[in-house]
C-alpha cells in the first residue's frame, strides 16, 4: 500500500481530480455570482482542466526539480538515484530509457483501446442497415479511433526516439532530461481526457474536427481538443529536446554523416514537430475559443471563415504524417542492412531524403482541400508539390532494394516486419497518386479509398516498422529475446489480415462507399465486401493479441539475450543488454560508418566496455540476477 501511494502517477491522478473539482466548483460559483446558470459544460470543464492539469503535474512531481532550482537548492543529477523497482516507471523519472519505455507502453495501451473502438464500429458497418449502434455512438467511436490512434503513433514515435537516439549517438542522456520527463507526463492526462470523451457524449466530427461542426459538437469534442493540445505541447517540447540532443550531444567523431539513418529521421521529425505543431494547436484553440467564449473565427455571420481552420489544420496535419512515418522509415533503414549483411546503399542520399520529405511536406497541405473550395488555380501548384514526394520516398525504397541485392538475407522476425512495411508503404504511396492528382481526387476524396490509402501509409510507415523495431530492440531493452515462433505467427496473421482488410477498401471507395458512415444503401451492393473487411480487421486484432502475449511472456520468462544478438554495428548494441543506467561511462570514439558490413577494417566506434563494479543494469528495472 505504501509503495502504491508513493507512485507519482497515483499522486498525480488524485491531485488532478481534486484540482479539476476545485476549478469546476470555482467557475460555477463565479457564474452564479454573475447571475448566469451555474452549469455551462464547456466553460466549467475547461476551467476544471486548467486547474486540474497543473495540480496533476505537481502531484506527479514534474515540477519539483524546477521549483527547487528557483529556490536555489542543489538539484539531484538526472538519473542519479539508484533505485530499480518497477515503481520507477510510474513516476517522473528523467532517464531517457525509462521515458522511452513509458512512452511506448502508453502508446500500446492507447492503440489497444482505439483498436477496440474501431472493431466495435467496424461490426456495425459489416452489413447495410443499422444493427446495434446508434449513429452518435458510431460517430464517436470512429472519431475517437482516429484521434487516439494518431496520439498513440505520436507517443510511439517519441518512445522510439527517446530510447534509441541517445544510445545511437553515444550520449549519456537527452539534452534536457527533466523536460523530457515533463513531456511524457503531460501526455498521460491527454489519455485520460480521451478516455473520458466517450462518456462525456463523444463527438461526431471525425478526428479532423472541422468547424463549424466541431463548434457545435457535444462536450467530448472539448475534451478531445484539450487532449490534442497536451499531446501537441509534449510533441513540441520533445522536438526541442530531440533536436538539441542530436545537434549538441553526439559522441566525439560522430559527424552528421556518421549518424545512423534512424537519427537522421529523428532529426527531420524533430524539425517538423517544432515548426508545425503550433499551427494545429492554434487551430483547435480557435475552435475552443469559439465554443467557450463565442468568438467568431468560423462563423460567417461574425466575419469568420471555415476554411481558415482547414488551412491551419493541414499545415500541421500533412507534415504530421511525416512525423509519424519518418522514424518508421528510419527503422527499416536500420534493419535491412543488418539482416542483409551489407552496407546501406547510398547512405548520404538516404540521409538527406528524410529532410527532402520534411521540407517538401511543408508546402503540400492544400491537397487535402481540393474539394473544399480553395481557389481553383491554387490546386495546380499544390498538385505539383504533392507529386514531388515520390522522389525522396523513391530514393529510400530503391536504396533498401539495392541493399538487399546480393546480400545475405536472413528472415528473422524484425526483417519480416520491415519487408512487409516496405510493401505496404509502397502501396500507400502509389495509391496516394490519385489523391494528389486533382481530377481523380475529386472522385475518391472522402471515400474508403482515402481510408485505405492512409492506413497503408500509417501501417507501412509506423505500425509494421514499430513492430519490427520492437522485435529488433526488445532484447536490448529487456535483456531477453522475444519468442520467435509467436513472432512469426504475429507477422503472418498481421500481414494477411492487413491486406485483406485494406485492399478491398480501395474498391469500396471507388464504388461509392463514403468514409465515416454508420450505414450505407444496400442498393450499392457493398455488403459482402464490407463483411470481408470486418472479418479481416478481427484477424489484425488477433495478431495484436498474439503480440501482447509474446511481449508479456518473453519479458517475464524469455531467453536471456546476448549484448548483440543481431550482430549489428550501431552503438547501442556495443553495450550490455539492457544498457547501463548512464549508457556510456566514457564517451565512445566514433571512427566510421555505422553500416560498414563486409568492408575490411571498417569500425563504427570504439566503446570502452561498461562494467565498473558499481554499475547496475538499467532496462525494465529488474536487478540482474544472472
Amino acid at each position, binding site marked *: 500500500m505504501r509503495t502504491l501511494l508513493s507512485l507519482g502517477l497515483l499522486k498525480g491522478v488524485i491531485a488532478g481530480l481534486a484540482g479539476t473539482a476545485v476549478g469546476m466548483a470555482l467557475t460555477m460559483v463565479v457564474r452564479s455570482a454573475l447571475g448566469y446558470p451555474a452549469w455551462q459544460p464547456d466553460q466549467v470543464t475547461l476551467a476544471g482542466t486548467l486547474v486540474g492539469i497543473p495540480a496533476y503535474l505537481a502531484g506527479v512531481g514534474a515540477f519539483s526539480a524546477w521549483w527547487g532550482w528557483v529556490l536555489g537548492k542543489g538539484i539531484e543529477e538526472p538519473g542519479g538515484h539508484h533505485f530499480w523497482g518497477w515503481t520507477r516507471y510510474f513516476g517522473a523519472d528523467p532517464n531517457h530509457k525509462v521515458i522511452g519505455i513509458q512512452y511506448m507502453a502508453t502508446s500500446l495501451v492507447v492503440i489497444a483501446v482505439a483498436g477496440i473502438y474501431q472493431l466495435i464500429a467496424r461490426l456495425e458497418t459489416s452489413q447495410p442497415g443499422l444493427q446495434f449502434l446508434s449513429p452518435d455512438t458510431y460517430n464517436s467511436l470512429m472519431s475517437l479511433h482516429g484521434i487516439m490512434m494518431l496520439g498513440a503513433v505520436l507517443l510511439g514515435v517519441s518512445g522510439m526516439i527517446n530510447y534509441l537516439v541517445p544510445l545511437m549517438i553515444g550520449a549519456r542522456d537527452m539534452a534536457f532530461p527533466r523536460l523530457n520527463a515533463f513531456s511524457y507526463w503531460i501526455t498521460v492526462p491527454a489519455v485520460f481526457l480521451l478516455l473520458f470523451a466517450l462518456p462525456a457524449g463523444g463527438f461526431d466530427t471525425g478526428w479532423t474536427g472541422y468547424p463549424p461542426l466541431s463548434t457545435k459538437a457535444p462536450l467530448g469534442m472539448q475534451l478531445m481538443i484539450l487532449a490534442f493540445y497536451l499531446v501537441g505541447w509534449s510533441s513540441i517540447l520533445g*522536438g526541442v529536446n530531440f533536436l538539441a540532443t542530436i545537434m549538441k550531444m553526439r559522441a*566525439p567523431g560522430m559527424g552528421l554523416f556518421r549518424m545512423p539513418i534512424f537519427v537522421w529521421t529523428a532529426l527531420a521529425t524533430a524539425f517538423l514537430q517544432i515548426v508545425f505543431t503550433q*499551427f494545429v494547436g492554434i*487551430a483547435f484553440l*480557435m475552435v475552443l475559443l469559439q465554443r467557450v467564449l463565442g468568438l*467568431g473565427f468560423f462563423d460567417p455571420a*461574425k466575419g469568420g471563415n471555415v476554411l481558415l481552420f482547414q*488551412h491551419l489544420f493541414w499545415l500541421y496535419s500533412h507534415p504530421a504524417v511525416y512525423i509519424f512515418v519518418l522514424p518508421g522509415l528510419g527503422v527499416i533503414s536500420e534493419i535491412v542492412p543488418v539482416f542483409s549483411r551489407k552496407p546501406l546503399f547510398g547512405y548520404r542520399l538516404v540521409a538527406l531524403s528524410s529532410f527532402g520529405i520534411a521540407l517538401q511536406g511543408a508546402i503540400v497541405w492544400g491537397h487535402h482541400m481540393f474539394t473544399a473550395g480553395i481557389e481553383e488555380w491554387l490546386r495546380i501548384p499544390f498538385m505539383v508539390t504533392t507529386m514531388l514526394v515520390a522522389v525522396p520516398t523513391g530514393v529510400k525504397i530503391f536504396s533498401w532494394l539495392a541493399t538487399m541485392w546480393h546480400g545475405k538475407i536472413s528472415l528473422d522476425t524484425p526483417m519480416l516486419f520491415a519487408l512487409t512495411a516496405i510493401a505496404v508503404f509502397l502501396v500507400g504511396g502509389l495509391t496516394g497518386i490519385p489523391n494528389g492528382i486533382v481530377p481523380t481526387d475529386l472522385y475518391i476524396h472522402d471515400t474508403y479509398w482515402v481510408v485505405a490509402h492512409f492506413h497503408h501509409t500509417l501501417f507501412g510507415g509506423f505500425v509494421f516498422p514499430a513492430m519490427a523495431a520492437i522485435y529488433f530492440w526488445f532484447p536490448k531493452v529487456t535483456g531477453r529475446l522475444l519468442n520467435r515462433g509467436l513472432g512469426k505467427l504475429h507477422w503472418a496473421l498481421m500481414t494477411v489480415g492487413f491486406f485483406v482488410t485494406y485492399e478491398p477498401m480501395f474498391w469500396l471507395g471507388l464504388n461509392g462507399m463514403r468514409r465515416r458512415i454508420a450505414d450505407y444503401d444496400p442498393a450499392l451492393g457493398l455488403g459482402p465486401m464490407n463483411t470481408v473487411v470486418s472479418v479481416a480487421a478481427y484477424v489484425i486484432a488477433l495478431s495484436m493479441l498474439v503480440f501482447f502475449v509474446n511481449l508479456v511472456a518473453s519479458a517475464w520468462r524469455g531467453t536471456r539475450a546476448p549484448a548483440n544478438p543481431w550482430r549489428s554495428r550501431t552503438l547501442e548494441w556495443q553495450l550490455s543488454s539492457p544498457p547501463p543506467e548512464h549508457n556510456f561511462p566514457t564517451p565512445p570514439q566514433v571512427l566510421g560508418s555505422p553500416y560498414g558490413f563486409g568492408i575490411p577494417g571498417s569500425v563504427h566506434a570504439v566503446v570502452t566496455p561498461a562494467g565498473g563494479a558499481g554499475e547496475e543494469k538499467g532496462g525494465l528495472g529488474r536487478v540482474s540476477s544472472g
Partner: protein
Amino acid sequence: MAAAAKTRGEDRVAIYRLGLWLFMGSESFLFLALLFSRFYLQGVQRPAELNQPLGLVISIVLLLSSLSAYRGETCAVYGDQAGFRRNILVTIGLGFLFLVGVGIEWSEGFHFFPPSTGFGTVFFTLTGFHAFHVLTGVLALAAVLVRGRKVQYGPGSYWAVEGAVKYWHFVDVAWVFIYPTLYLVS
C-alpha cells in the same frame, strides 16, 4: 552533473541556448499563425475606434522593458547583483504596466469591437495570446529574481538570467510585429 558533463566535453550553456532558441522558434510559428489568421479573416481592415495613442505608448513601454532587461542581464554577466536586481524589478514593473495598458484597450474594445465580431475575434485573440506570453515572461523573470537571493550570478554563471531575459526579448519581438498588424495596417 557538471562533472559528468565536463568529462564528456559538453557545453551545457550552449545546449540550453540552442534549446531556448528552438522553443522560441516554435513559438514564433504560433504568432505567425495568428498573424496569418488576421489577414485571412479581416484583410487589412481596422476599426476607427482603436486607441492609437495608447497603442504607441504600450509599445514604447514594452521596448523600454526590453532595455531594462538587457541592462539587468549585462549586470548579471558582470556580477553586479544590485544592478541586476534593480533592472529586473523595473522590467517586471514595466511588464505589468504593459498589461494594464492592454487591459484599458480591452475594456474599450469590449465597447467598440466586442470579441464576437470579426475584428474583435482577431484582436482579442492576438493580444490575449501575447499578454499571456508577457505574463509567463514576468513569471520567468520573477523566478530568476527569487533564485538570485540564494545564488550569486556572475561571469560564467548567468544562464538563468540570460534565458529569462531572452524570452522577454522574444515577447517584445512578437509585439513589434503584432502592433502594426493590429493597429496600423489599412
